[in-house]
């Protein structure tokens, strides 16, 4: 089957690699082969090397870069490229991603229509390289947008040694994901890491002095990074007459209103949801690969996990804790900067916010993803620390040496290590009990412990 994928971002690359056995064409408008976009902030921070971002594409994929699609001819089942050439398809996949929205700040764009030199977007590899190159000459940076990407960029720049300020128009950080309590704790943690946070403040103007906020502050800065999100790129679909609302409308098989055309990733709308994250986009790509292989597969869109990747900030958001209905179990500890909230419905963790303490994330995510039905006390127990083991005196029948099957009483009956070895063979296997045996032998001189039990 000839599959043409429009876009060469994360979802597109994932889908293309999963379509082995098909004849796949991948059309990207960037100059770079597919790369792992979500690690760009890690490149900026310096933990990842750019070369390590390249994603795998099989031999079956015909990758065309710097290629723009201008039209879909649905009747002919062809697409038209910017150079007027046409490509036929059996299945067409729109993975056109999103278009960054430019916040309404005067002075971002110069009179010649280009961005002010201090202003950076942070969406593509080129954006990342340009910002990276600007860091050494800069002392201060303002990040506009307190969402996941904004916080990651803020931390990256902070780790690089810049003085960083974050401006968030909403009342708190991560306002699409978490509630005010979590946002406040996060802001405090960020402040502790040296980053100033302005919430409920809008940037209105960029002047020669700096970024002017609506609360009157003027933030002197060398760099302004825009991370304020985007909207689904739908113009191609709209022109082709496909059903488009906020995004390109798809059903559970990621199929649009034309059965031969599909959409995945940021440009697609499933139910009333448009996602802006990679995990659901990759889940969609996986499902669509199976659908195109003729397998029964559906995307139910229910489970997403958003993770902040930033040194010193631990955040995980499971599902939609702001909207999910259920009973709430919450443990908040502003003193140490942790806030954890589980939304539980019929025993199932349907959403969660974990800020500042991810010690149980490995288990909570598993329960969330698998829909495990928990007992009433469990969600609470998940948020409590493990109890420290109590110190105790070994009972006479407590096994000390598993290799030889020797208990504490047997050891206490011996007077020396040599006797222990000869009489019980303890310590002659893996050697792990040697310390315990020595302690037990030493304790023999303390009559109060002799034969006592815990």
């Amino acid at each position, binding site marked *: 089957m000839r599959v043409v994928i429009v876009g060469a971002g994360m979802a597109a690359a*994932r889908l293309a690699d999963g379509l082995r056995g098909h004849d796949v064409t991948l059309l990207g408008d960037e100059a770079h082969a597919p790369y*792992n976009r*979500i*690690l760009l902030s890690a490149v900026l921070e310096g*933990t*990842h*090397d750019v070369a*390590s971002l*390249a*994603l*795998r*594409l099989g031999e079956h994929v015909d990758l065309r870069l710097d290629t723009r699609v201008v039209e879909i001819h649905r009747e002919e089942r062809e697409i038209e490229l910017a150079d007027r050439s046409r490509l036929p398809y059996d299945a067409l996949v729109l993975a056109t991603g999103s278009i960054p929205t430019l916040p309404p700040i005067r002075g971002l764009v110069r009179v010649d229509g280009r961005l002010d030199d201090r202003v950076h977007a942070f969406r593509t590899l080129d954006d990342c390289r340009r910002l990276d190159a600007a860091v050494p000459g800069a002392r201060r940076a303002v990040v506009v947008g307190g969402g996941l990407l904004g916080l990651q960029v803020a931390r990256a720049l902070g780790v690089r040694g810049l003085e960083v300020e974050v401006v968030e128009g909403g009342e708190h950080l991560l306002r699409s994901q978490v509630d005010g*309590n979590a946002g406040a704790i996060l802001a405090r943690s960020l402040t502790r890491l040296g980053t100033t946070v302005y919430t409920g403040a809008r940037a209105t103007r960029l002047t020669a002095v700096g970024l002017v906020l609506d609360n009157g502050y003027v933030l002197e800065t060398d760099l302004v990074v825009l991370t304020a999100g985007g909207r689904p790129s739908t113009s191609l679909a709209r022109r082709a007459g496909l059903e488009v609302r906020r995004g390109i409308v798809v059903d559970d098989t990621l199929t649009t209103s034309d059965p031969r055309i599909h959409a995945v990733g940021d440009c697609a709308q499933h139910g009333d949801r448009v996602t802006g994250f990679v*995990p659901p986009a990759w889940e969609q790509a996986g499902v669509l690969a199976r659908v195109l292989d003729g397998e029964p597969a559906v995307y139910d869109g229910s489970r997403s996990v958003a*993770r902040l*990747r930033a040194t010193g900030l631990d955040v995980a958001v499971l599902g939609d804790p702001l909207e999910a209905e*259920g*009973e*709430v*179990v*919450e*443990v*908040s*500890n502003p*003193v*140490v900067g*942790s*806030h954890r909230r589980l939304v*539980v*419905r*019929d*025993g199932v963790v349907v959403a969660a916010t974990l800020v500042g303490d991810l*010690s149980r*994330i*490995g*288990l909570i*995510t*598993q329960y969330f*993803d698998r829909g495990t*039905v928990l*007992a*009433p*006390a469990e969600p*609470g127990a998940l*948020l*409590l*620390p*493990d*109890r*420290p083991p109590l110190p105790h005196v070994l009972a006479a029948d407590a096994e000390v040496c*598993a*290799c*030889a*099957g020797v208990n504490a009483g047997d050891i206490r009956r011996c007077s020396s290590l040599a006797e222990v070895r000869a009489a019980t*063979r303890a310590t*002659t*296997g*893996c*050697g*792990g009990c040697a310390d315990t045996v020595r302690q037990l032998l030493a304790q023999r001189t303390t009559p109060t412990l002799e034969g006592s039990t815990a």
Partner: protein
Amino acid sequence: MTDTHCPYCSLQCGMSLERAGRALEVRPWAEFPVNQGALCRKGWSAAGLRGHRERLTSPLVRDRATGELRSASWDEALDLVGARLRELRDESGPDTVAVFGGGGLTNEKAYQLGKLARVALGTSQVDYNGRWCMSSAASAGNQAFGVDRGLPFPLEDVEQTDVLVLVGSNLVETMPPAARHLDRLRERGGRVVVIDPRRTPTADRADLFLQPVPGTDLPLALGVLHLLDAAGAVDEEYAAARTVGLDEVRRSVAAWWPERVERVSGVPASELRELADLMAGAERVMVLTARGAEQHAQGTATVLAWVNVALALGMCGRPFAGYGCLTGQGNGQGGREHGQKSDQLPGYRMIDDPAARAHVAGVWGVDPDSLPGPGRSAYELLDALGTDGGARALLVFGSNIVVSAPNATHVAARLADLDLLVVADLVMSETAALADVVLPVTQWAEETGTMTNLEGRVILRQQAVSAPDGVRSDLEVIAELAARVGSPVPFATDPEQVFAELARASAGGRADYAGITYDRIRAEHGVFWPCPDADHPGTPRLFADSFAHADGRARFVAVDHRGPAEPTDEAFPIHLTTGRVLAQYQSGAQTRRVRDLPDTGPFVELHPMLAARIGARDGELVVVATRRGELKAPARVVTTIRPDTVFVPFHWVGANRLTNDALDPSSRMPEFKVCAALVTAVSRLVASAPRTSTPASLVEVRAQRASDPTEAGLIS
């Protein structure tokens, strides 16, 4: 005093046997370097089957009238078997007879068993329980290095590495004396990392412990390599000079950033970073896998993923570093090298290679065209028994199939459909009890033969006592059967003579034993293969200069994670994994009968949170159910296991009625280590109390917290 080796695991600890009247005593053999005199209780009590009342000392034949087994003379039993095998073969061709061997058999027995199948019976249907042991590591080793030797270095090299990563190995309990090497490593300042769904006694000795969901060692490896590559820790020079395939692997791990691995594996991204940092900063890194990583439908891919990590760091072939597999069974290594594997001939030659066939047929004195081609793998062979195209007769040596096969109820049903089941064993194992003919054979201290330990060191098991009357050696039994089915060539029965023939057959093969003799093994504390001639010193360390592929380079092989064949779901929400306990070995046919070893019976290890959820207290009976069967056993409530996972030891009937028979596409390894289960307390089944699932309330958390002053937090 007779120097020999323990009858059980692949460590093959050296020990000395001393006769004290009628009794046989185990003494340390301090000079043998692998264990230096240390033994676990299995080794110390190994003589416990000597003179045991359950030893079989007479052939048994199932009486047609009563359906019971009765004593028979050797001639009667062997004649009966020979006649039935000939009849069946005449009726429906040579593949109607199948042979099933074991990874505990000596090299000589394994070799003769393969020859019995290929030459005397002419059947392609021969395989062995080693498929269920380390076959995934074998398959990965062949793909990556061009050769499969468990450890490419002596075990004591562990002490000299800087970071040791144990993936799915609980060696402190499964091969206790090996743990001494860990301790010496740590005394030197080296670090130990353990990856296991259970915090085992091995994990207790680790500097870093990662506790993944069963079946996710593969994405962990992908995530580690992702971080190593991101940090620029890949040894580019080594990769360019000694390997091929790095680029594709590199691009494939770009998709496995730590937070994605965290979601799949249940291991926090921070712990993955700790592991990668540890590995990136070390001069010498050693990665060892064992059954926990290998016994999966993606076992080969899992091992390859970890091999990729070791190769990327430039470790393989470097002193005190690299990748290795901790083989499980006593002769797991040698057992797969000499022809009882369905696709192989002696010397690790492939049966579909014309040159290999010609060489081995030459040693055997038969026409190469008379040798059958590749047959079915162990589980597939059993699955086909009694069906169209499957075998109708099965000869079993050194394996207790109905306890150790996955989906064991199904396998027992297949055995029941056989026309003839013959089992050679020393005790009435659960499989022998189903047989039409049972042949009593020698054990360990009563016989001589070579084993090849986990290091690829060929060692000598030496006879210390004579066998009980009525018992014959496996070699004698195989020779008698060969004669009775009209073998074109005679079969030797003297182990040293068989070994000399094996050495010739292996000459020029990948596992070349041509220069090894019993005398050399005695003189040198074992000889490492390959050892092509008498003057060759053997090869303790492989890969120093080149790998075994024709171009001398190792292969990076790109792999991706598919996940367990049977994911958990609403009906079966808990992961089940299986494994061993210290005091028992394999199917327990031997160790369960040794008086000095505690025979606890199976148990179900589960976390207090899960125990509370299902209403089970420590020691109370629970039922573990999977799509294939059920097991009722006492709960053992421990905080050391993941709360989403239960563990059942496999030494008793039951565990493998639960396990999944999904196979690895390359190694044909069944997925013993993970399947989906439902765990229920028997008390609740009886009461059939309706299950309520009231969500936790804030009040409840407050109440719990009030009783726990250690948390400094507040509830908002």
